[in-house]
């Protein structure tokens, strides 16, 4: 095969330039055709290098294919199709041209990243992911989205800079820029892991995600939830499988966001915390590194894009129709938006890993891999996190959005294009959950021997689901469940949104104070010096006296005498 084929991102970038000039059906056609043709173009692609370009002394591999990248290639085309279908209704005053164009460029960047064969190409698309997607946040046109978008951009660009630094050190040390297994050894790989970690939402590096995603437009968040973090998962799976540290990091990711999700009022922010929790399962799988675990991680990424997208779409539809997604404001919407409510329930069942829904067939792979590897405590914590998912994504999202106490809001069902997008996602969730061996399993990087549907898996999962749900509903019934409150919950972004500005401000005033003090003391010393100098040089001072010539001659002879004396000694 000649290494000059058109890489998958090319069509997306070309369409991104084109769509602002198209209207109506023509634009809709382009938006929907690009991902469909993109997916068809991937069919039957052979593994290997498909396109390279020479830039200065480097040969950049812009299109390289293997089973792992191919799976993400199909996934991102699918996600783009659903997200474009969901956003077809956008009007000019909502910034349709900007959002459609940014969405295309963003999806194209994600495809560019997963088919990148070297670290430099990866870096370019890594930065483009940030630069293109930030417009989906800014398009909300609120003060919050503006400042949140700036923070999002800064953090993501820093991630890219770390990646570039790591890549250059790696190239210097090994002479290779190939994007392949790296493993953790030395500064270069740590920098690259940190870069991946920021985009994957590692603990304490995750602030940007829960800060910005809920501030984007109703349709923008659907794009955001699909690409950036999953590109990071892909990158981790390629470069760091079997890295022990990732098991610990992943478990923390599954466990800490579920506490925040319980008390968060903005339902799209709840889903953002939920996203970190789900990525945690993937990171654990990558860290375990066995074929079953990596298969589980990748399969879960595939399913998560669809069911998390579906949940984000349902909340986006609510935001679009009612202008709010706050738990305190909503409730009873199933009366006005019954179909959206039903689709939301499918998403909730999928993420909660109800048997016959997609989450069940992938999450159980990671759990089984943890048990098989003898990681008992990891497994216990993952089980706890699974119960937490049932609470916040399985119950809280649909319950507070569509049921709970009727808020009195009456509105219309979501627009047809939104319903279609949610409907297709729902069908996929059930199809993958019911027929994993005919859908997602054949795409996985390793052959699958795992059987999700046996009595043990189904029975134990049903027990967990039933009793964690009953726990939640009985707590609600008895008043033990904390009510939704209008509030902000402090998280790691507090460090740069609240603390850092104050530290800089108080450091600034401390420097100003020190500077003022220094100037005052210096001025005082200067004035004392000037006064003394003036005194010494005044007509009456000793320095201004007249001396007779004989006095000078006397001193010269004394000095010469002393010199002679020392010479002879």
């Amino acid at each position, binding site marked *: 095969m000649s290494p000059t084929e058109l890489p998958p991102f090319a069509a997306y970038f070309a369409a991104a330039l084109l769509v602002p000039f198209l209207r109506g059906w023509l634009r809709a056609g382009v938006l929907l055709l690009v991902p469909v043709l993109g997916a068809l173009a991937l069919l039957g692609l052979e593994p290997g290098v498909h396109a390279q370009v020479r830039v200065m002394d480097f040969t950049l591999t812009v299109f390289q294919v293997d089973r792992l990248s191919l799976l993400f290639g199909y996934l991102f085309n699918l996600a783009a199709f659903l997200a474009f279908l969901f956003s077809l209704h956008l009007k000019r005053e909502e910034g349709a041209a900007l959002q459609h164009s940014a969405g295309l460029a963003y999806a194209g960047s994600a495809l560019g990243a997963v088919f990148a064969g070297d670290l430099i190409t990866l870096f370019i698309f890594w930065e483009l992911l940030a630069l293109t997607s930030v417009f989906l946040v800014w398009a909300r046109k609120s003060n919050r989205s503006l400042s949140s978008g700036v923070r999002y951009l800064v953090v993501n660009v820093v991630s890219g800079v770390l990646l570039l630094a790591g890549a250059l050190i790696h190239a210097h040390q090994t002479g290779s820029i190939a994007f392949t297994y790296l493993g953790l050894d030395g500064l270069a790989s740590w920098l690259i892991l940190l870069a991946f970690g920021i985009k994957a939402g590692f603990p304490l590096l995750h602030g940007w995600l829960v800060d910005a995603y809920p501030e984007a437009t109703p349709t923008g968040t659907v794009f955001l939830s699909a690409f950036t973090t999953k590109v990071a998962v892909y990158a981790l799976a390629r470069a760091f499988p079997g890295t022990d540290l990732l098991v610990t990091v992943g478990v923390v990711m599954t466990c800490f966001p579920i506490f*925040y999700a319980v008390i968060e009022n903005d339902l799209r922010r709840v889903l953002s915390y939920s996203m970190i929790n789900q990525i945690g399962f993937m990171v654990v799988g990558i860290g375990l590194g066995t074929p079953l675990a990596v298969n589980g991680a990748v399969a879960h990424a595939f399913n998560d894009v669809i069911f998390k997208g579906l949940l984000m779409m349902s909340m986006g539809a609510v935001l679009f129709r009612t202008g709010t997604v706050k738990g305190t404001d909503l409730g009873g919407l199933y009366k006005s938006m019954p179909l959206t409510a039903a689709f939301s329930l499918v998403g909730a069942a999928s993420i909660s890993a109800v048997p016959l829904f997609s989450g069940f067939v992938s999450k159980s792979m990671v759990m089984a891999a943890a048990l098989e590897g003898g990681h008992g405590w990891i497994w*216990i914590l993952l089980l706890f996190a699974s119960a937490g998912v049932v609470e916040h994504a399985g119950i809280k999202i649909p319950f507070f959005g569509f049921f709970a106490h009727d808020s009195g809001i009456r509105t219309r069902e979501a627009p047809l294009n939104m319903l279609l997008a949610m409907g297709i996602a729902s069908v996929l969730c059930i199809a993958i959950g019911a027929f994993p061996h005919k859908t997602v399993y054949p795409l996985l990087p390793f052959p699958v021997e795992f059987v999700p549907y046996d009595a043990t898996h189904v029975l134990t999962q049903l027990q967990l689901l039933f009793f964690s749900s009953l726990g939640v509903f009985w707590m609600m019934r008895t008043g033990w469940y*904390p009510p939704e409150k209008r509030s902000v919950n402090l998280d790691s972004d507090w460090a740069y949104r609240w603390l850092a500005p104050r530290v800089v401000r108080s450091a600034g005033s401390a420097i100003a104070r020190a500077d003022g003090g220094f100037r005052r003391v210096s001025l005082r010393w200067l004035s004392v010096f000037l006064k003394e100098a003036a005194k010494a040089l005044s007509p009456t001072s000793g320095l201004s006296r007249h001396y007779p010539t004989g006095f000078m001659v006397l001193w010269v002879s004394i000095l010469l005498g002393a010199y002679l004396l020392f010479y002879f000694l």
Partner: protein
Amino acid sequence: MKASGERARFLDRQRNVDRLLWGATALGVIVILSDFFFHRHVYHPWENFRGFYGVFGAVGIVLLVQLAKALRRLVMRDEDYYESD
């Protein structure tokens, strides 16, 4: 609350909600009981305990929610916390 002139729906009546809740609880009990009749594979010592998953789910979720409630004291601020400067 329902908008004026609307017919009360099934879920608007607390009695119906309670019935559903008790029904679900009964189903849960059946699921737990089935644990005594099926032979299932055991990989972790805790799994030997019949009904382990149910008990773990219920205890875990209560613990999670109550700890999260306590977390509010530490992290909860006014809605315009970051804007009020």
